[in-house]
């Protein structure tokens, strides 16, 4: 390896340890005297706890202690909410339930034992006497009169009512030329399923009173802060370490009950304790995503002009407010309802509703996939209604390209983008005309072929702290970095964000290498340890590079400025004539007057000959708070073929053109796009969380949930446009979520397109074989009935 450049597909420096089994995840942490935890969880969706008998468990082999929610009520406090809304109802959220369980999997007691096997054995010996209560799992049903009530603080189970808009939708649709198309759109509940489940090791230092939490999280610094706030443990005595983290997708973005319980229990038993979530447990105890029931309207004219969109949404929050739950179906959803279109009138109402289900929070895309799905499904639905090509309608309504800020109807400012450019490029790769000809031919042969277009724009790079704070954020959303160049010219970088698959160690080192000319193997990137590194908010909302990378870039500029001044001094040259490239300072026109950055770093520490007033050493810190969000956007095109006799949908082709701004490492960005698209296709075709009416989860394993496997996907074809973001000094936008946002509408538009000639206008996700087969049968039946009616009329 050598000096890396911006835009180069540098192979990942993380990989050698990960392909040889030398990664270190939470379950790989082994401490002397470590005991193991297992949780006793509710087997009902809603019940009062009448009594808990723990004596048999306490006497089981290897068991050290058993704690119920009542035992630890005071120490545990309540789990926090990190985002406020006006009139938000905040019912208490005890980490261990002690009076009432409100969802399947709500924890009621914890076992501490010598081994994990013994802890799990003892779970079976705890007898909980429940008084079963009526349950409600559907976000709309829960608001109706007579529905079971979860919290006395939230009448009718409503956690909040929120609205956003712009223009005047009600007035605009009074125009007699306006056509209004209505559809009920359900965005089904999803389960994130990172391949590594959650887990925590809590190490209590009896002598110092310190606690160290090794936890599989996206937000080590926030876990530290929130753990301290919840438990009252002094913050300086709390250390949180996120080691290698095996995926997150939003689901590891909260303070969880088990993290708090592990810390408190470690102090109680004075031994390190480990809890590793089983997959079955993960299905009920790790936050879910999506779950929207929405009545939507789109209004426009015959010529394809869209004049507005109206949304009335029931957003299922689950049984309690997870850390960022109030943010996801509100700002991250409602602000995006204009898509890449002019959309002059927007009317959005959101009802956040408590139900007897696992709490719902951010899952990859978080609000934006729900918005993009709704907008793109409705735009295609509208095009179908007026009998126009969905591309013609899209193009007619798209925003013009812009480079530096465009305010849209919801009041936010898109940063930069060429929306028609994305569409044109995608169409060029795809060859739309040819496809429509093929589709006609296929239909003649009895084959069902469909194409789906989806455009999107998303809000990420979170965030301007002042803006976020005015909208309800409980913490600043800046990032920071520390660049320490050692006397030998090698460097250690501390960053506030930490990866769970995104390759920060590579990309951040690449940025350092490209700026300072230090070989990439001489750069160590440290992250995820609150005692070691810089404070940061964490890795979510596609923000690590757009905010954290920008903070790093700014530190690097300070290093460059100092070394430039020092090099000029050492070279006895006017700084104006000293150049810096590839890690070498040179004096213009004087061939032998050069110094490498390594030599200059050595001199900075030797401090024998520094310019007047210069401090020794070479270490710089920057905090970066962006002025605006970053706004990735793009166009995705999907082709599906549906088997007539079985309803099986196969994705035949997938083309994605994305604008991620400048791209630091194309290989990594492409990889994230593949993964994002796959999760979107998964939502469209197979994944869904299914609850029974009384709150039992039917989709409780990887196969019951229908997690996508390798045979579900075609090779995706990726391309890009580049509109550098003016929101940060490196012009990047973020790429973590885009694929997921665009893919589900692209696939579903293709499914409906394949069936449109049969009269199908909409279908909710997932488009399973059964659902598609039934739609085909119903459509054919309707056609037969229509023909019979026509004959009778003759």
């Amino acid at each position, binding site marked *: 390896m050598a000096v890396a450049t911006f835009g180069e597909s540098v*192979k*990942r420096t*993380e*990989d050698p340890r*990960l*392909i*040889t*089994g*030398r*990664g270190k*995840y939470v*379950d*790989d942490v*082994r401490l002397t005297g470590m005991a193991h935890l297992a949780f006793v969880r509710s087997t009902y969706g809603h019940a009062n706890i009448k009594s808990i008998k723990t004596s048999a468990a306490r*006497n*089981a*082999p*290897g*068991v*050290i202690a058993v704690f119920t929610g009542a035992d630890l009520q005071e120490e545990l406090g309540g789990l926090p909410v990190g985002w406020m809304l006006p009139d938000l109802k905040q019912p208490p959220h005890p980490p261990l339930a002690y009076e009432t369980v409100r969802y399947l999997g709500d924890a009621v007691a914890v076992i501490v*034992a*010598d*081994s994990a*096997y013994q802890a799990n054995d003892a779970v079976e010996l705890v007898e909980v006497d429940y008084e079963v209560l009526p349950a409600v799992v559907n976000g709309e049903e829960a608001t109706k009169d007579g529905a079971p009530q979860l919290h006395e603080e939230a009448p009718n189970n409503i956690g909040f009512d929120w609205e956003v808009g712009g223009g005047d939708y009600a007035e605009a649709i009074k125009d007699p030329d306006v056509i209004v198309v209505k559809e009920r759109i359900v965005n089904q509940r999803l389960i994130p*399923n*990172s*391949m*590594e*489940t959650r887990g925590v090791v809590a190490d209590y230092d009896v002598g110092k009173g310190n606690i160290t939490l090794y936890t599989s999280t996206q937000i080590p610094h926030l876990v530290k802060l929130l753990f301290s706030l919840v438990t009252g443990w002094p913050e300086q005595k709390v250390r949180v370490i996120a080691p*290698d*983290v*095996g*995926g997150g*997708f939003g689901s590891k973005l909260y303070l969880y009950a088990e993290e708090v319980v592990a810390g408190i229990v470690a102090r109680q038993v004075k031994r390190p304790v480990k809890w*590793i979530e*089983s*997959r*079955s447990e993960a299905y009920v105890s790790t936050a879910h995503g999506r779950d929207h029931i929405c009545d939507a309207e789109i209004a426009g004219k015959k010529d394809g002009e869209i004049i507005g969109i109206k949304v009335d949404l029931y957003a299922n929050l689950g049984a309690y407010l997870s850390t960022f739950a109030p943010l996801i179906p509100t700002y991250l959803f409602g602000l995006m309802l204009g898509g890449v279109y002019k959309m002059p009138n927007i009317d959005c109402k959101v009802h956040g509703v408590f139900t007897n289900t696992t709490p719902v929070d951010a899952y990859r895309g978080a609000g934006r996939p729900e918005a993009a799905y709704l907008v793109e499904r409705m735009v295609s639905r509208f095009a179908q209604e007026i009998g126009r090509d969905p591309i013609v309608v899209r193009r007619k309504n798209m925003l013009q390209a812009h480079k530096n800020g465009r305010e849209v109807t919801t009041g936010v400012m898109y940063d930069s983008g060429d929306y028609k450019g994305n569409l044109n490029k995608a169409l060029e790769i795809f060859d739309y005309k040819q496809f429509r000809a093929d589709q006609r031919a296929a239909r003649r042969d009895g084959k069902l072929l469909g194409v789906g277009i989806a455009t999107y724009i998303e809000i990420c790079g979170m965030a301007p702290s002042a803006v976020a704070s005015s909208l309800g954020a409980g913490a600043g959303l800046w990032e920071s970095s520390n660049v320490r160049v050692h006397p030998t010219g090698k460097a250690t970088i501390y960053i506030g964000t930490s990866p769970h*698959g*995104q*390759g920060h160690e590579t990309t951040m080192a690449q940025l350092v290498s490209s700026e300072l000319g230090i070989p990439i193997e001489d750069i160590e990137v440290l992250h995820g340890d609150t005692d070691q590194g810089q404070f940061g908010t964490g890795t979510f909302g596609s923000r690590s590079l757009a905010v954290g990378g920008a903070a790093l870039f700014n530190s690097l500029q300070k290093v460059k400025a100092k070394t430039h001044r020092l090099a000029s001094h050492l070279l006895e040259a006017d700084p104006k004539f000293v150049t810096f490239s590839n890690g070498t300072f040179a004096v213009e026109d004087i061939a032998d007057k050069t110094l490498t950055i390594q030599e200059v770093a050595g001199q900075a520490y030797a401090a024998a000959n520094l310019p007047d007033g210069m401090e020794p050493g070479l270490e710089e810190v920057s905090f970066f708070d962006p002025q605006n969000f970053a706004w990735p956007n793009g166009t995705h095109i999907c082709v599906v073929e549906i088997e007539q006799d079985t309803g099986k949908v196969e994705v035949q082709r997938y083309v994605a053109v994305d604008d991620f701004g400048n791209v630091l490492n194309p*290989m*990594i960005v*492409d*990889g994230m796009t*593949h*993964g*994002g698209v*796959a*999760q979107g296709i998964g939502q469209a075709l197979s994944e869904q969380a299914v609850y029974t009416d009384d709150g039992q989860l039917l989709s409780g*394993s*990887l*196969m019951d949930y229908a*997690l996508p*496997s*390798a*045979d579900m*996907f075609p*090779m*995706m074809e990726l391309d890009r446009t580049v509109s550098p973001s003016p929101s940060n000094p490196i012009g990047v936008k973020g790429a973590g979520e885009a694929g997921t946002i665009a893919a589900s509408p692209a696939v579903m538009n293709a499914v409906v397109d394949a069936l449109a000639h049969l009269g199908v206008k909409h279908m909710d996700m997932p488009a399973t074989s059964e659902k598609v087969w039934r739609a085909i049968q119903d459509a054919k039946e309707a056609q037969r009935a229509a023909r019979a009616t026509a004959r009778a009329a003759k």
Partner: protein
Amino acid sequence: MRAYVETSGKGPTMSTEITVTVNGTAHTEAVEPRLLLAHFLRDVLDLTGTHVGCDTSQCGACTVHLNGEAVKSCTVFAVQANGAEVTTIEGLADGDTYSNVQQGFWDEHGLQCGFCTPGMIMTSEALLKQNPNPSEEEIRAGIAGNYCRCTGYQNIVNAIGAAAKAGK
């Protein structure tokens, strides 16, 4: 020799002595009969490269080779491996030289979070042993028992293709 299960003075746990050769080294240990091979490798031998991603034998993260065949080590009791040869992800490279599959995963960016990777690599090794020149479709079918949530499988398929090419 050490027993896997520590006790806390509340009575001993039954254990059985087994000898398993892992990555070429024979290990004799006393284990509970119910101990899963995955936990034997991880918790008794400290070979933590084998990951456990589910409790229903569905995810494939724990795949190892048992007498040359790919098995999900969460579905095998350690006592069933008595007398057997086991290869784990830690035993795949020849010193500093990665296997073609490992190299393929690195070159083609076939991993992101890395959690499914050990199992995915072990499955891929077995796939290429059975079919040294698989088509894309055969690769996708061959790894359908291993879940990955990060990559959309695209670069895993490319990685296995690259390994097959390198193996020619």
